[in-house]
């Protein structure tokens, strides 16, 4: 970081010197007071948004409108507006669903797993990452619901007493596990996020200028007054929720992978799927957190809270999980060869050399090769380089799901049913719409709620990394 090369770090060593050895650095730059943290964190929620925020909102709302139009087309004209056929009966929608659920997992990882590991640097990013989780899960949830064709009957997927004689959902189906897992994940993530927000909502309430804002914040801050008795219970509850969320996040993507792994399609029917999917989710999620944070910190002037050291720590997670994902790709080929199963072997040869080889090699290039640049410290600490690489990772992880789903399906057991899949404009528009929804919600979030957990940051303000 160029601008603090000539200042002293908290421990009195020149920052550049300290950074070289990677210790004695404060978590938050700028030697701030508690009051300063309050002012700076809440400022974006109290001033009028700048012009570029409105411009960004205009773009994301346009994307959202395009997606809404495409959804209306799908619902009024039917699923036939999509490029699906008998052989490839699942493609873009499920790809996008798995992609968005995976994006969400980084938020939970940062808020829960890093909390349990006492990684205090998480405090600057956990609020935004958890919000990202919620928005990503909302985007994910729309796809299966649209694919139902009659989304107003989506409640049929829940076990409720009904008037159709004895008729219950099939608890042995992974698709039902998926419904339960994603709903639970959304509810628990929302609860976790809200619990973390309460102290900051109280601060926001105390600072509110208008009566309406004060009333709304009073309702949501539940009478929080910073009492130690409440803090003590709060910390217990926070720890318990972190402990519950950690296995939950692993279970969610495990169950998502079982949508595929419990079927008998070559290329899907593999025990490697649960760990492979979970790691891929963390990989793509961290890449998305980095993409968002690099924009947000510079647009909102939060460089002293989300420092390059935060970015660097996250790039290391991206590098590690990227290598595991690469290992999984190699393992899949080994398993296919070692199984001696001609169908399994064919699927993997076809993946790398068949009609969709362009998608396969895009995936390998983005997911296995691009993270290798993170071996260089210069790359790990240069925001624009991280930004470009994480965009590549996001593209690669989207293609990973596309490759797994479409290449496994499009060459069926019977050559007579072989087919190709290509998305229609409607499907692409729905994908664009989901990005519109995601970024619209995120933009609104940054202006309505404190993007950084002020109470947590104050707690680590005097903390020095050793």
């Amino acid at each position, binding site marked *: 970081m160029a601008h603090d090369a000539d200042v002293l770090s908290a421990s009195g060593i020149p920052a550049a010197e300290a950074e070289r050895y990677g210790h004695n650095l404060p978590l938050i730059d700028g030697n701030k007071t508690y009051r300063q943290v309050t002012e700076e964190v809440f400022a974006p929620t109290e001033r009028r948004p700048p012009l570029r925020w409105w411009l960004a909102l205009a773009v994301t709302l346009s994307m959202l409108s395009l997606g809404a139009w495409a959804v209306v087309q799908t619902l009024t004209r039917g699923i036939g507006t999509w490029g699906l056929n008998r052989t490839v009966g699942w493609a873009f929608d499920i790809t996008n669903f798995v992609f968005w659920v995976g994006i969400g997992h980084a938020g939970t990882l940062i808020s829960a797993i890093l909390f349990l590991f006492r990684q205090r640097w998480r405090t600057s990013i956990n609020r935004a990452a958890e919000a990202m989780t919620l928005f990503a899960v909302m985007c994910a949830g729309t796809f299966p619901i649209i694919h139902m064709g009659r989304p107003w009957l989506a409640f049929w997927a829940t076990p409720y007493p009904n008037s159709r004689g004895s008729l219950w959902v099939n608890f042995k189906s992974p698709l039902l*596990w998926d419904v339960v897992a994603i709903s639970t994940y959304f509810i628990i993530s929302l609860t976790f996020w809200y619990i973390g927000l309460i102290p900051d909502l109280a601060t926001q309430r105390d600072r509110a200028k208008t009566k309406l804002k004060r009333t709304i914040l009073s309702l949501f801050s539940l009478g929080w007054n*910073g009492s130690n008795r409440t*803090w003590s219970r709060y910390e217990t509850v926070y720890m318990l929720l972190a402990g519950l969320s950690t296995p939950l996040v692993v279970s969610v993507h495990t169950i998502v992978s079982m949508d595929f792994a419990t079927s008998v399609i070559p290329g899907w029917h593999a025990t490697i799927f649960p760990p492979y999917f979970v790691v891929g989710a963390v990989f793509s999620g961290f890449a998305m957190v980095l993409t968002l944070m690099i924009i947000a910190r510079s647009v909102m002037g939060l460089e002293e809270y989300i420092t390059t050291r935060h970015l660097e720590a996250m790039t290391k997670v991206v590098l590690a999980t990227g290598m595991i994902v690469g290992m999984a790709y190699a393992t899949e080929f080994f398993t296919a060869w070692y199984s001696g199963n001609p169908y399994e072997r064919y699927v993997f040869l076809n993946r790398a050399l068949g009609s969709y080889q362009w998608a396969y090699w895009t995936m390998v290039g983005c997911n296995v090769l691009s993270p290798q640049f993170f071996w260089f410290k210069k790359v790990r600490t240069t925001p624009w380089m991280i930004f470009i690489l994480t965009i590549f990772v996001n593209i690669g992880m989207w293609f990973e799901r596309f490759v797994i789903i479409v290449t496994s399906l499009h060459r069926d057991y019977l050559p007579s049913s072989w087919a190709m899949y290509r998305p229609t404009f409607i499907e692409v528009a729905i994908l664009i719409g989901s990005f519109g929804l995601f970024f619209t919600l995120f933009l609104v979030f940054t202006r309505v709620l404190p993007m950084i957990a002020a109470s947590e940051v104050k707690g680590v303000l005097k903390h020095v990394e050793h």
Partner: protein
Amino acid sequence: MSSIEHLHRSRFRASFPDPEQLLHAVAHLRAAGHRVLDTYTPFPVHGMDEALGQRPSRLPRACLAFAALGLALAAGLQIWTSAVDYPLIMGGKPLLAIPAFIPVAFELTVLLAGLGVVASFFVAARMRPRLRIPDLHPGANDDRFILAAELAADVQFPAVARELADLGALDSSLLVEDRFRRDGAFWDRPAGVGMLLLACLPAFLLLALVPVLNRDFQRRNQAWDGGMGAPLSAQAYDASGVLPGGKVLQAPPPYTLSRRGEPPLAFAAGKAEAERAGRELQNPYQPTQARFNRGKLVYERVCATCHGREGDNNGSVIVARGAFAPTVLVSPAVRDMPDGRLFHVATFGGPTKMKGYGDLLSREDRWQVVLYIRELQKAAKPVAAPAQATGVQP
């Protein structure tokens, strides 16, 4: 109303700029015999629970109780719906497929535990949506570290205020009336947790019934997977365990309309109605090559099995089996019947032998079959009416 009237006589507050000073002051006040009621800080100050002599929270107990409740509900719901109320074989898995129930059971356990512990937290900390919140401790959510305490019996407040100022207090004052109540919720009492666990007992007992209900005397060893390796399969003509009377397909309710969008026919079954149909109905289709082809296809697939490909019972399966002889379609009796009557029989069946095909063939196909039968009759050799064609029922 003036807050002066509500100033407490013996309770006071003091605010500090730093958590360490607050911790120090709390320790000091407690050593001097004052009772520190609580502290109000912008973030949790570690070591404050010990400094206040506050016991650790017992919310983990509530979490455990709700987790048990979630597990019990999930187990009960899945076992009852899948094995008792709706015993449908799906994917060849046993009705009590315990491994398949694990994911949902896990998710609901986490869901109930998470929501339950948060609800317990709100109850214990008396947190609820409030419209007006008195700002009793200004700055506690910003950058002030505040304590509230009760004076020891024989001490006056000004003396304490001076001590606190020496300890770094920014200000101190007597406290505006506030309520401090001792908490007591169900999870603080062992009996409360016990009651909740007891409430989960029936569902766990149901879970314990699994090996009993799943008993199979032909199998020597108990499989670890609850029988997942031995698929169940329903045989053709097995009675269904789901529909009343063991049916596998339900008859449509009366007055059900066809999904093909055809309006209901104004005729009922029976010979009188068949004769009325003969008088009132005309074949709406003219014979064309396409209609002939379609009629031939339907006739040969559906009708020829009994009536023979030529309509003369030659090759009829049921004649070959010696069951009974169907009406000969190319006989003069049938040739003289009007189109509407043949259509009625194709729809509702004959009075004794033939079943109706109204629910299987579209109305257009039935008319086309009538056209095809007319062609068969034209092509048939004019022979004397065979002995079988005794009745008029086609």
